[in-house]
């Protein structure tokens, strides 16, 4: 039996109630829009990549369930200040975690922060909620302006 508490941990409620880095940057270098058509979740990620390829600022805005909102909020906290290759490694680690695999990127310092979301692995219908923000930010980093869907 899945314990609901593994999915809805206190940290999730906290980020859902008061999402960090919420809003839109006025002059982003990169931006992407992500939607999960099945549940109507949508969010926009805007970021500034500095000349050295480091994510200088990162905001998200949109509406979604507690899982997708918390995931986006936690993601912005982790990725700010990281280089694109570092961000990619977090993406891969989180993707592994959410789909029930063990991430190989064990050296990542903020990996434990992501663990609060690993409960989604027992809820296949909710994995897309948790990964939407990550797919969107990856898409923004790859193409300066893009639109993604988790369907």
């Amino acid at each position, binding site marked *: 039996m899945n314990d609901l508490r593994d999915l*809805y941990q206190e940290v999730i*409620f906290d980020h859902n109630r008061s999402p960090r880095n919420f809003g839109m940057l006025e002059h982003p270098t990169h931006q992407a829009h992500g939607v999960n058509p099945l*549940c*109507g*979740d*949508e969010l926009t990620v805007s970021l500034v990549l500095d000349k050295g390829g480091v994510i200088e600022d990162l905001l998200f805005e949109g509406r979604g369930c*507690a*899982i997708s909102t918390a995931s986006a909020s936690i993601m912005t906290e982790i990725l700010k200040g990281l280089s694109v290759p570092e961000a990619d490694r977090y993406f891969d680690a989180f993707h592994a975690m959410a789909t029930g695999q063990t991430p190989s990127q064990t050296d990542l310092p903020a990996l434990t922060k992501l663990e609060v979301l690993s409960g989604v692995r027992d809820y296949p219908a*909710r994995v897309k*909620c948790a990964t939407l923000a990550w797919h969107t930010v990856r898409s923004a980093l790859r193409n300066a302006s893009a639109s993604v869907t988790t369907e």
Partner: protein
Amino acid sequence: MNSAAHNQYPPALDVYALRADFPALAQQINGHPLVYLDNSATTQKPQAVIDAVADFYSRDNANVHRGVHRLSQRASDRFDGAREKVRAFINAPSCAEVIFTQGTTGAINLVAQSYGRSILNKADEVLVSAMEHHANIVPWQLLCEETGATLKVAPMNNNAELLLEDFANLLSEKTRIVALTHVSNALGTINPIQKLTRQAHQAGAVVLIDGAQSVAHGPVDVQSLECDFFAFSGHKLYGPTGIGVLYGREALLEAMPPWLGGGDMIRTVSFEGSTWNALPYKFEAGTPHIAGVVGLGAAIDYLDAIGLQAISAHEQALLVLATQRAHSQPGMRIIGNASDKAAIVSFELDGIHPHDVGTILDSVGVAIRTGHHCAMPVMEFFGVPATARASFGLYNTAEDINALFDAITKTQSLFAR
């Protein structure tokens, strides 16, 4: 679905006995008894339907209308017998007017592509309502794109009732097809079909009714609805998935060109040209879903034995109870408050996304639908990305409603901290 039916005091259902007919209901989810409240998406199947399908495959399986051997004869008899059951169930005048399709969606697409494509011109209009399921929007959009015709939308009010005056005003000599849902899947609204059909006919339009959400929940008589086409699905009628029905008036069906070409729908084939089989076979190319048709026949037998009026009265009582509970539940808002409603309660909880509601309800065994219910324009109208929806069937009880509201309270307290 006429409201007069509610006043006849049909005998109350012995719901607890009926529940025993549905093996899927007798299971635990996460250690809780399953409370199945997603009947608008699909209904559970009574043992009689499961047995009919298994029995067909076990003894009578053969192709229909093709062989002289015994199994083919038995399969054909069961197949044709089911068509007669469907005819009687919706009171169609003739079996020639009952066409088997893959479902409601297949039936609507058939009408759009065969009837619609052969009559629509650039200056013409197709009229739908603001509360349609995607299956009664997109086929018409595709048709309008192909023909250059215009799709018009009759608006609704904040209670999710169709605005009758606007509907009447949108009708003109340009209106060739009116496609309306009998019961809204996302909101529960029951539309006054007979009245709307008469107005549409006065304007010279042909009327298609999407009956996916109505046929299992009250008596349907296509002749008293006066519609030209009526579409529904087997799986929302306690029957199998993958099978549906299109009723069409014979004169229209006769004049319509075939849609899908293939075996069974032809009379003769040569490389110079082919001639078409009689109705309803003209629209049933290829080997049909024979077991599905047999299962649908069994579902109709099952419902007839209970009585659609009794089912309607039972579900209306559940709707009244669930609505009262919702009104006294803090932070809960019902979306869709039409005065004439089927037992569908779409709702929102303050500050809690429907997807979270669905997961938390599931953790205590309560199965509801969350999302846009294939009615994104409805969600847009009410300014919500999605709703949670509890939809009732003949086997639901007051205890199910208690379980639903206990689970809603649990969800709210989880999110309140």
